[in-house]
């Protein structure tokens, strides 16, 4: 469903993606882990067409995004939900109006149909009773859930999550994790999640990929990642200071070697 092949992306002199290959199938929940500033969010932005690769191809639903006009890109994005780090809710709109926004702007039904859909979605994220509040009047966890409701209200086939549990207490994180798992079970959505939170990654992922040096250096199931012998993966999962991911540490040479031995 999502295929990134040999994607390169630089900002100025800084190479962010360096031959990235990523393949996510329909109904799969794929979690991308990696250090801050390594290009995880940049990867998500390529999938939704907010960024374009310097070279390489990004294919979503079998369409090569580089061939799309701006109008086609807008159409493409309607099939994708995106949860931003802090929810990215519009501060002057209530939660209900925020969630209704994409439906109203695209005139996706009558006012009563939109209202019903919004309330149903707010029920999913348990925010119905807070629907009249402004984003500034609720907690960070609630903002993320409202952002998730807005991402889901258009019934997307793909949902992208940028750090869905960052800055949340463990209970709020678990609520989000539960929501993500429920969505996959109920609707079979294809989900790509960027996170640093290993507990969350192990809980929700079908597969996990570790991004390092602009590529996915390790891909595997949660168990495979947990038992990986890759120095980089071990360092990241265990949060060790010393190792190949440290600024001055040697680069990890392993490529897709999580299940096997270090190369």
């Amino acid at each position, binding site marked *: 469903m999502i295929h990134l092949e040999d994607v390169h992306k630089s900002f100025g002199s800084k190479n962010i993606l360096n031959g990235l290959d990523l393949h996510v199938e329909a109904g799969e929940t794929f979690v991308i882990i990696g250090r801050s500033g390594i290009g995880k969010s940049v990867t998500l*932005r390529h999938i*939704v067409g*907010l960024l374009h690769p310097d070279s390489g191809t990004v294919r979503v639903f079998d369409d090569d995004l580089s061939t799309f006009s701006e109008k086609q890109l*807008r*159409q493409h*994005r*309607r099939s*994708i939900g*995106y949860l*931003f*780090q*802090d929810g*990215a*809710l*519009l*501060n002057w709109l209530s939660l209900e109006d925020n969630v209704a*926004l*994409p439906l*109203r*702007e*695209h005139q996706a039904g009558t006012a009563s149909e939109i209202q019903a859909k919004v309330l149903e979605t707010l029920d999913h994220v348990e925010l119905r009773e807070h629907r009249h509040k402004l984003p500034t009047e609720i907690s960070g966890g609630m903002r993320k859930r409202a952002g998730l409701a*807005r991402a889901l209200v*258009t019934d997307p086939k793909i949902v992208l999550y940028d750090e869905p549990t960052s800055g949340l207490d463990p209970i709020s994180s678990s609520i989000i994790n539960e929501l993500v798992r429920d969505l996959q079970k109920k609707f079979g959505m294809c989900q790509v999640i960027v996170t640093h939170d290993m507990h969350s990654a192990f809980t929700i992922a079908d597969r996990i990929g570790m991004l390092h040096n602009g590529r996915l250096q390790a891909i595997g199931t949660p168990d495979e990642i947990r038992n990986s012998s890759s120095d980089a993966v071990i360092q990241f999962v265990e949060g060790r200071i010393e190792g190949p991911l440290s600024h001055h540490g040697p680069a990890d040479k392993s490529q897709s070697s999580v299940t096997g031995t270090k190369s």
Partner: protein
Amino acid sequence: MTSWVNGIGTLLVSAARSSGFGIDLVGQTLRATPCLLTYRRIKDVRDLLFGYILAAFPVTSLVSIVIGMILAIGMGVTLEDFGQEHRIGWLVSATIVREMGALMTAFILAASLGSGIAAEIGTMKVSEEIDALEVMSISPIKFLIVPRVVALILVCPIMTIYADLIGILGGSVISSSQFGVSFTTYQLQALDALDLRDVLQSIGKALVFGGIVAFVGCTQGLLTSGGATGVGQATRRAVVVSFLLVLVVGYIMSWLIYR
């Protein structure tokens, strides 16, 4: 020396980039204006219009009345020397309606509303709300820029006419209290100084100034990067650039009108 040259170079590149972006934004906004035919956008413009008028009303009132009083006292002292103090109304009215009204209103709107637009859109940019609109296939130009630009273009002439009236009123207070010119004489002189062409020129200038303030605010907002510091810088740049553009364009328009 090298750092100075680098600094000037960076400034020029940044100015060229902002100018190019701003011109492109004007084109995109013009192309997107048919979106105003929808009820939702008309409602947005209406709400913004009332909000902008309310926000600009107190400061416009205060500045206009004081400017009118300053003009009256300055001109009155000179005219009194020639025994022509009854002409204060004529001069205050002509100065305010032909030049000062539109100019000072544009400055007030740049400082109060243009900076606010830059801060609002800049904050949305750094908190990914603009990206969120793109992801939802909602055009930020149609959703954010067009309503703000149209509302500000409409607010500027409305507030200019109001500023003209309040400024002339301020002058009348001084001319009556300090120079003994009756209200009736002042009003007759004020009306004598003007014809319809003056009023229409003032409104025309105000429309252009409103557009400048709106587009500069939106441009600086959309170019914001770097968190809270970036929002602060965008706000400051919006005010400075608006002031400069309004002055330059105002001069060109006056030259075209009177020469």
